[in-house]
């Protein structure tokens, strides 16, 4: 199993910084051959629709590069606000903290690997090239 990337977002990102993070991260996934990406947002106090979209984009792009993304450490106030806003981050997996996120990634990758080995595993678990 490839290495995991851990991204900790420490400050409120303004748009250009968030877009830079998006491109840097996708570059890093491709270069390192990472199979898992953990994005720690425990220090982020505001997630608006723009930030939500960046997180969703990262997950989708990572999936294209055969990596799983897990967002960890979302603050309760942020979760409540996102639900009220109508933003449920579809396609993004979440975990309570880095440790649980790591476990989730490991189990996901194990499932994907065993399906890769099996002759019939071909549909939803993102068959790698």
């Amino acid at each position, binding site marked *: 199993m490839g290495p995991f990337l851990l991204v900790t977002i420490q400050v409120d990102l303004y748009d250009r910084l968030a877009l830079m993070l998006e491109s840097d991260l996708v570059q890093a996934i491709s270069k390192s051959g990472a199979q898992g990406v953990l994005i720690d947002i425990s220090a982020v106090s505001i997630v608006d629709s723009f930030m939500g979209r960046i997180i969703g984009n990262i997950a989708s792009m990572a999936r294209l590069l055969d990596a799983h993304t897990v967002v960890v450490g979302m603050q309760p106030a942020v*979760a*409540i606000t*996102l*639900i009220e806003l109508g933003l*449920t981050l579809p396609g993004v997996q*979440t975990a*309570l903290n880095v440790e*649980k996120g790591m476990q*989730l990634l490991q189990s996901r990758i194990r499932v994907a690997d065993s399906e890769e080995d099996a002759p019939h595993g071909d549909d939803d678990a993102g068959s790698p090239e």
Partner: protein
Amino acid sequence: MREQSEGIVNLVVDNLNEQTIQLDPYALEPIQEYLAGISISRARHGFSPRETSFYVLSLKNAILDVQEESAGSDIAALYESTRALNRLFDELSTNTFETFIKGREDVILRQTDEISEISTPVIRVWDQILAMPLIGTLDSARTQTVMENLLQSIVDTGSEIAILDISGVPAVDSLVAQHLIKTVSATRLMGAECIISGIRPEIAQTVVQLGIDLSQVVTKATLASALKHAFGMLKLEVRKTQPPKPFMI
């Protein structure tokens, strides 16, 4: 109480001597503050308004006696000073009432906060499993407290499953259901799971009759079955231990 009375009498008497019984708003301030302190503490200790106002008015009588003594035979002066004293005490007692009621209101507000705090306890029933029994009507303000408490406890304990038991909620209308769905969604967004238990038959009926879609939510009839479901999710098993076989000869 004697200390309080002496304090206030001294303040009033000082004021009278200096200002020759003229109502000076600045000189009144320390007296007002002193009285406010007394009436708030009385409101908190559950004195009745009658007792509190009686207390202020009895001070007036005491001062009247002193005035009578010091005035001697000068009736006109006594009349003037008595009138001034009356005005002063009218002002003071109105103020006392106001602060007394404010003191009571503060008590009520604090109790409201306490009730909403107490009525939403989060219990750790197992490692990784939290339960929150909800009792009483759920309005928007309370649901907000419920949601915040539950989510914060999930973060603090790192629990993966939360059980929201609604057997103590008298009725579920579409608004309450919406609140419950939001709580479940927010829990999931943080990476945990939320089960709703304690669905009584009447509640199941109203939910369906109102056309509320709870299909995305795991619901269970009892807290016990929710716990069982949670064990299943955590791949835990509860078994009865085999009793030791009776020893045979």
